[in-house]
């Protein structure tokens, strides 16, 4: 499995997957817009000008201006930094919590498994969004807390996945062999189990970046997102919904931005899955 330089093959397979390539292109474009935002727009995303509020898209403001007269394009570009950051960091947190717990649970079984699985069940029974919502309510709004809450919200999914992987890898010949040689459990977990779980974990993480962006956007929709005047897509969409009838661009563009970013991560995730591990089931 790990002998045939899977990454080279995978990249080739990925390059043949048109949808995945489209996803990569979209993310590359978004990434560029977001990273180069200060160079691409002369507008300050926080600069208000009430006298030019709610202007529809024009040459001057390609995506129009919001209720405080701020340039929507600039806010989407700068807001992307926040939204993408939330997606990536929240999934990192979810993995940092979920993967070790899941691997331990699957590898050791017994009461360790029992305890960890009950914890996962408890978290799952809140469902992702409500768990994130409850945590933000307790921690308070703000970027850091949104990231933590969203990350913890999706963590149980990673516990489940990692457990399944550890369960199947435990039975593999080389793990048994290693045990026979007296290699410590932790070493086996690190050397063999984790390394061989990386591929499906990365695929799943990619797919989950999209989910965390949507969950965070939902918190923003409820007014539990980042602090003003920081631009963030979900909060922009949430605030734009009251303008949907006569200044729909306030909601449409952040909505599209979320949609495109999530779509792209899903396409890449699908492509990676096909390329790396056709048997993986999320």
């Amino acid at each position, binding site marked *: 499995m790990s002998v045939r330089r899977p990454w080279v093959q995978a990249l080739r397979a990925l390059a043949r997957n048109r949808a995945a390539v489209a996803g990569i292109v979209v993310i590359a474009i978004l990434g560029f817009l977001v990273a180069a935002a200060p160079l691409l727009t002369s507008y300050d995303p926080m600069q208000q000008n*009430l006298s030019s509020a709610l202007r529809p898209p024009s040459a001057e403001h390609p995506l129009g201006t919001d209720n405080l007269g701020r340039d929507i394009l600039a806010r989407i570009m700068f807001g992307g930094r926040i939204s993408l950051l939330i997606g990536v960091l929240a999934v990192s947190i979810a993995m940092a919590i979920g993967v070790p717990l899941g691997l331990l649970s699957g590898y050791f079984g017994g009461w360790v498994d029992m305890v960890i699985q009950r914890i996962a069940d408890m978290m799952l029974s809140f469902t992702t969004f409500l768990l994130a919502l409850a945590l933000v309510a307790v921690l308070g709004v703000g970027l850091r807390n949104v990231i933590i809450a969203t990350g913890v919200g999706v963590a149980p999914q990673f516990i489940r996945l990692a457990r399944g992987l550890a369960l199947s890898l435990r039975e593999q010949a080389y793990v048994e062999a290693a045990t026979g040689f007296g290699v410590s459990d932790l070493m086996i977990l690190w050397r063999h189990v984790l390394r061989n779980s990386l591929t499906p974990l990365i695929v799943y993480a990619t797919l989950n970046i999209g989910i965390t962006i949507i969950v965070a956007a939902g918190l923003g929709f409820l007014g539990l997102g980042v602090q003003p005047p920081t631009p963030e897509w979900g909060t922009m969409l949430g605030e734009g919904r009251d303008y*949907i*009838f*006569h200044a729909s661009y306030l909601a449409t563009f952040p909505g599209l931005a979320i949609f495109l970013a999530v779509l792209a991560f899903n396409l890449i995730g699908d492509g990676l899955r096909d390329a790396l591990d056709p048997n993986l089931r999320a």
Partner: protein
Amino acid sequence: MTPAKDSRNDPSGAKPRHRRPRRAAGALLLASVVVAASCTTGEGGEGPQGQGDNTFDIAIGIDLDTVDPAQMTTTTVANVVDYSVETLTKLKKDAGIGPGLARSWEVSEDGRTMTLRLRDGVTFHDGTPLDAEAVKYNLDRLLDTDVEVPQRAAYTVIDNVEVVDDSTVRLNLSNPSPALPSALSASTAGIISPTSAEKRGNSYKNITHPVGTGPYTFQSFRSGDRVVFQRYDAYWGRKPHYRRVVFRLTPEAATRESQLRAGQAEMIILPPVSDLKALQQSPDTDVLIAPSDRTIFIALDTTEPPLDDKRVRQALNYAVDKKALVDNLMFGAAKPLDSPMAPPVDGYCRTGGYDYDPQRARQLLAEAGVRDLSITLGTPTGRYLQDKQAADAISGNLREVGVNAQVQTTDWASYIAATAVPAEQQKYDVHVLGWAPAFLDASQQFQQFQTDQHPPAGLATSFYSNKEVDSLVADANQELDAQKRDRLYCDALKIVWDDAPWIFGWVQQFPIAYSSSITGVSYLPNEKFDAIYARPKG
């Protein structure tokens, strides 16, 4: 299928409508129109008996937390319950207090007793008569500490309630209370049938099915969904047009507007403010922007340097372009404050204006020796019209005079925990707050400016303290001569205005949108709509 579905039946006994195919509904509608057209109804101007034309649908934004008058804390909830429960005195559109269930009242020379004469021939919806005993029962309940009455403070001046005869009640007061007639007009003091208090799921401590004397009888309330009222044909006053009134509980403003535009609600409150103009211009809809009593302001912590310097507080007032804010952000659904109190409140007088003058602001700040001031500005989100957006805009204004105000928001519960606390626990340097007096009397507004109302005792969160104001207000609160009383309050208002414990914001107006096919939609000046006598045009 499920228990709750049974309750979807109309109270009139019609079958659940959700299983009926559209064609059948159409046929029924047609049939009802035919029936209506072929019989002459006795009551002039009555529409068909079917539900289509004779139901008035109103979409409101909040779920009801209670239907017990005594437990009211929210104006809109009270507004709904007002359809079936009436009060002894009534607030009028011009903010005066007029007769309600009491046709008249008099206050004794020393101001220690108030005698109310009740209207004759009034019956509760359960058929029992409204008499002095019933009134005593309700007021006693209001004062009974076993019952949860959040706004009880306005009534504790009543020592006891005496039944003089069947239609006369005497209230003995612990001290003179010129505000009491106004307090008795609040929905909190609504009169329900004493015999109903133990029936239909009601208990003395918690009324869930209010039985009042109003023009509509309460039929049902389903949490998160709707409240249904049926016209009370034995009503003592003028009878309303619509047989049924249904309040639809729709939290999203854009959805409420959709319901209005789609013809699924005849009237909605608080449409998205940005659409007020379009709704006004549309041939299908009309808009009423009602004056209201709610002042929106930024409370400045007057105990904290440099905000303890009056010049700094005045500078902040000059720095904010209230007019631009009201025009561009509120779309006309607000008016800049020209006094620490809203015009409909009894005791109001105009005290001046801090017109937008950034130059003056910079100058005052320089005089006070303040430079590079950095403050946190707290705001709730969605509690008041455009609150967070306004705070955002205000921080933009302040930046232009060299004050860096960092906006911070959180949910309402956390917000009041961060603001309605003693000075040393305050989370923000300055914070956005709205204040609607419990009833339209200056004494209620002045709770914001009295030393004895500093948290935790009250909610005067700017910790403003001025002995002169305290004594003027104390005198005014017990002054029985209306003119003298007004003068005392006005003097106090002028001092407060000059001391500027707030960035004086605006009076929030109360927008109502309704179908242009109806008429008779009105308002009361305390953020309430008055649509009981709404009817189709023509």
